[in-house]
């Protein structure tokens, strides 16, 4: 027999009587919960009797309803009393002390004041910046040590990182940079053609690729691939206590985990950027050939316009980008807390932080190079 729960409220001799009946289980009890609660809250200074004689069955949720009624703050001599509850349900209810459940939810819900939010935020920002600074120092020291004593470097890890971050990235770098060269050249050519200046497309594509787009796109791809991978790898090691194991074995996690990845990124980023540039130029050339400009003329024009200093500046920039991606990825990984979720957070925040820093660094480079060139 399944009957819906029902609630009748009556007042007699200054008492409030709540008569509950039917099935009070998790699937149904919600229908009467709020009404019952309100009835109890409405009369804080009169005794309340909850008559449960007609209740057919209670499960944990039904017991919780009774507990909720019992834990409401009451005036003196105005308690809530449960009556007619079958012994086996009474035993379930008696496991809990209503006083223990009083006033707990309120505390958690208290909103933080503006001052508290600002204070906590700026403290977190400061300690984050100090932490990053300390990490840069430690990493530089470890890197110098590795360069001075190359035998201490973990070559196998370095090569693996170089392969995963560099060689394995070739397909996606090829695809993106070819498309970039292609689109850039095509859009420019459509406009330039009206003035019969198709040859200038070579200059435009060359200069944008070398100065900006190739380094930037490569860095962004690297942040998404390697930065996230570094953070997740090291983060998982942290969660599995492998990093702790390194520390107690007397092995420096920075030297052991960060330096190989950083070195790999420092070597692979410029190479990948160079490669992206070449592929991008070919993308441009492919468009130009449809405008009947031969490859040789296109290349001659490009290399006449792009100077060596563009090129050198470019390489310096990619070093910095590589350092940002690897450094941020490893730092986020090392600062992972506990649990699978925090590994995901570490990877996400590695990518986002790298992207922000890359854009900021790129802006600084643009300004500095502009003044150097004049």
């Amino acid at each position, binding site marked *: 027999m399944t009957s819906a729960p029902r609630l009748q409220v009556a007042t007699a001799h200054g008492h409030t009587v709540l008569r509950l009946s039917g099935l009070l289980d998790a699937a149904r009890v919600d229908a009467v919960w709020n009404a019952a609660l309100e009835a109890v809250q409405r009369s804080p200074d009169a005794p309340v009797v909850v008559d449960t004689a007609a209740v057919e069955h209670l499960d944990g949720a039904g017991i919780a309803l009774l507990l909720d009624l019992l834990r409401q703050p009451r005036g003196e001599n105005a308690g809530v009393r449960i009556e007619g509850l079958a012994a086996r349900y009474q035993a379930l209810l008696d496991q809990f002390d209503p006083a223990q459940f009083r006033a707990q939810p309120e505390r958690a819900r208290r909103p933080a004041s503006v001052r508290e939010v600002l204070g906590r935020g700026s403290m977190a920002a400061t300690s984050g910046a100090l932490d990053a600074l300390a990490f840069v120092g430690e990493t530089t020291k470890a890197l110098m040590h590795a360069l001075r004593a190359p035998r201490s470097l973990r070559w196998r890890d370095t090569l693996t990182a170089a392969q995963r971050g560099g060689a394995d990235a070739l397909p996606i770098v090829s695809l993106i940079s070819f498309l970039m060269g292609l689109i850039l050249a095509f859009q420019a050519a459509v406009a330039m053609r009206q003035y019969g200046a198709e040859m200038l497309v070579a200059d435009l594509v060359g200069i944008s690729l070398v100065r900006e787009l190739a380094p930037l796109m490569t860095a962004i791809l690297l942040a998404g691939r390697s930065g996230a991978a570094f953070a997740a790898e090291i983060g998982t*090691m942290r969660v*599995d206590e492998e990093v702790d*194991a390194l520390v*107690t*074995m*007397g092995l420096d996690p920075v030297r052991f985990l960060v330096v190989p990845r950083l070195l790999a990124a420092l070597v692979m980023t410029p190479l990948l950027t160079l490669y992206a540039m070449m592929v991008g130029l070919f993308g441009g050339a492919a468009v130009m050939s449809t405008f009947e400009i031969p490859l040789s003329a296109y290349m001659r024009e490009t290399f006449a316009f792009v100077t060596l200093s563009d090129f050198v500046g470019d390489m310096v920039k990619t070093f910095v980008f590589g350092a940002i991606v690897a450094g941020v990825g490893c730092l986020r990984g090392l600062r992972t807390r506990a649990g699978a979720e925090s590994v995901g957070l570490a990877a996400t925040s590695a990518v986002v932080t790298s992207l922000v820093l890359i854009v900021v660094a790129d802006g600084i480079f643009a300004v500095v190079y502009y003044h150097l060139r004049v």
Partner: protein
Amino acid sequence: MSTLPPLPDTGPIIRVENLTIGYGGKPVLENVSFEVRRGEVLVILGGSGSGKSTLLKHMIGLYTPMTGRVLIGGDDIVHAEGAQRQAILRRFGVMYQHGALFGSMTLLENVRLPLETFTALSARAIDLVARTKIDLVQLTGAEDRLPAELSGGMRKRAAIARAMALDPGILFLDEPSAGLDPIVSADIDQLVLRLSRNLGVTFVVVSHELPSIFAIASRVVMLDRRSKSIAASGDPRELREHAPDEWVRRFLNREPEPA
């Protein structure tokens, strides 16, 4: 470069002095002091959340305590830095709760790693030493497997082998038998007893598996969450019968709290 400063042979091997430890300014344990004697198997036990793992991590120098110090072989690990800290770290090995074997390396490579880093032995010698450690924990035949290819019990034994690679005088074990079947768990107990008797290794073990505690412990230190301190310490069999604190007796007899 076997410049391991030998452990002094007298006095307690580890001293925990007035340690107050916790997270974010909130103490989990307050003003805790105890000693670990040379060659004994000391078990740290206590209810869930009483701070056993926290205490262990402070004893091995991973975290800095709020106050107090931890002396390992007479030297303070809390304030040691650089070469001195390295020397203290070399006095002990740690088996982490889930093994913490390096996932990208085979079992053999895991055990070889500390030897490669800290000794001047030839590759051949390192190989042999590593194999003897693997043999001690009865994992011969599994040398070339990756940690992911080992069972939970094998992983714990492998972690013990790695912790023993440099023959430290002290081994810290975090929950060596949690989550293992009774036979595998008894195997690990046997391993601990064998190493302690044959090699004189001192053990500090975190555990709440009572059968295993009664099998291996020469002494226990019992942490109490409510008082944030040590509720009792001594021989576990003795405490089970005669501890002054009723809660301690109940814990060791596996009796529920009275209603």
